């Protein structure tokens, strides 16, 4: 009954999610005529994207000091 994902799996997942969200938030904040109308809190989206990116960096740092 253990959680099946290892640290490297979570690291990869964080990286992929961070990239997806960062691209989305960048596309939305450029506010073209279409994406400018998307009803979403763009600031929070960017915040989440950055948080995930930082999470990924944290896993990388952990990996440097404590290889898993």
């Amino acid at each position, binding site marked *: 009954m253990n*959680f099946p994902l290892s640290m490297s799996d979570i690291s990869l997942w964080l990286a992929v999610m961070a990239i997806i969200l960062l691209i989305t938030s960048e596309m939305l904040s450029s506010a073209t005529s279409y994406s400018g109308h998307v009803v979403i809190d763009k600031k929070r989206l960017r915040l989440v994207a950055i948080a995930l990116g930082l999470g990924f960096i944290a896993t990388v740092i952990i990996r440097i000091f404590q290889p898993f």
Partner: protein
Amino acid sequence: MSREKEDKTSELTTTQYLIETIKQLQVENENLKLEMKKLKGTPSGKIVLVFIIPGALALTFSIINNSTILAFIGLSLTFWGVLFFFVRPIRYVQSSLLDSTALATYTTIDRIVKDLKFKGKSYYIPPYPKEVYLPDYLKGLKDPVVFVSADTGGMPSLEELAKSKFLLENPNGICIAPPGLGLLLHLEKEMGKDAAKLQLTELCESLPLVVVESLQLAKEMEMKIENNQIYLRMLDPAYKNLYGTEERLKSVHFLGCPIASAVACALAKATGKMVLIQKDNVSPDGQTIEVWYRLIEGEA
């Protein structure tokens, strides 16, 4: 007699026609209501549940079965569910409502100005900074006000301004709260700075960014400093209809729409000088609004 009959029959047909039209409109109204309900009935709250419940289940099963794939699916579904919950907007309303809510204020000011037969101009008077200590009897000086003068000459004294009076006698005029005061507070909150602490150049750079990108009150906004004048150009501002209403509001030209008024308040706060809306110009298609502000030397 035959004419009367004809009249009656035509009246009957008109009534029937009107009844049918009303029925049709009622049906249309009901359909529109249903459509609105459908649109309102899909809040992001439901989407959140749709993602989170299967996500949580997948995560639980992944732990029981020790399955990596289920764990990835569960993690992603839960994450997106939480994300949808997190990035929900506070509340959005149609921008056309902004005009309607501001219309009453401008109509009232128009009536006051017309009733008092004022022909003067409006001066945005800079308030004292919030941090500065003022005795109770001078606290009125901390409120940003617009002085609408009865004629073109004279400024109210500090004592008169401190009393927070509406009707001023020397010089003749009225002191009102700027229509863009609330918006200015919002702009300052978005900028994270008090306008009084900004330089004029900084203000001209940061204010258009906040108006266009953060609050989306206009499609484009430009501010330029030209000697003692400041030029403002707004493309498709949220309050553009105020300039072209059937009522032909006069006050919107000398006070500015709430955006122009908020800019005037910010300029007064940043420079510590009185600001006058010298002139404005609306493009023939009503999409572009240009405002010229003048900074007036010397305090009130």
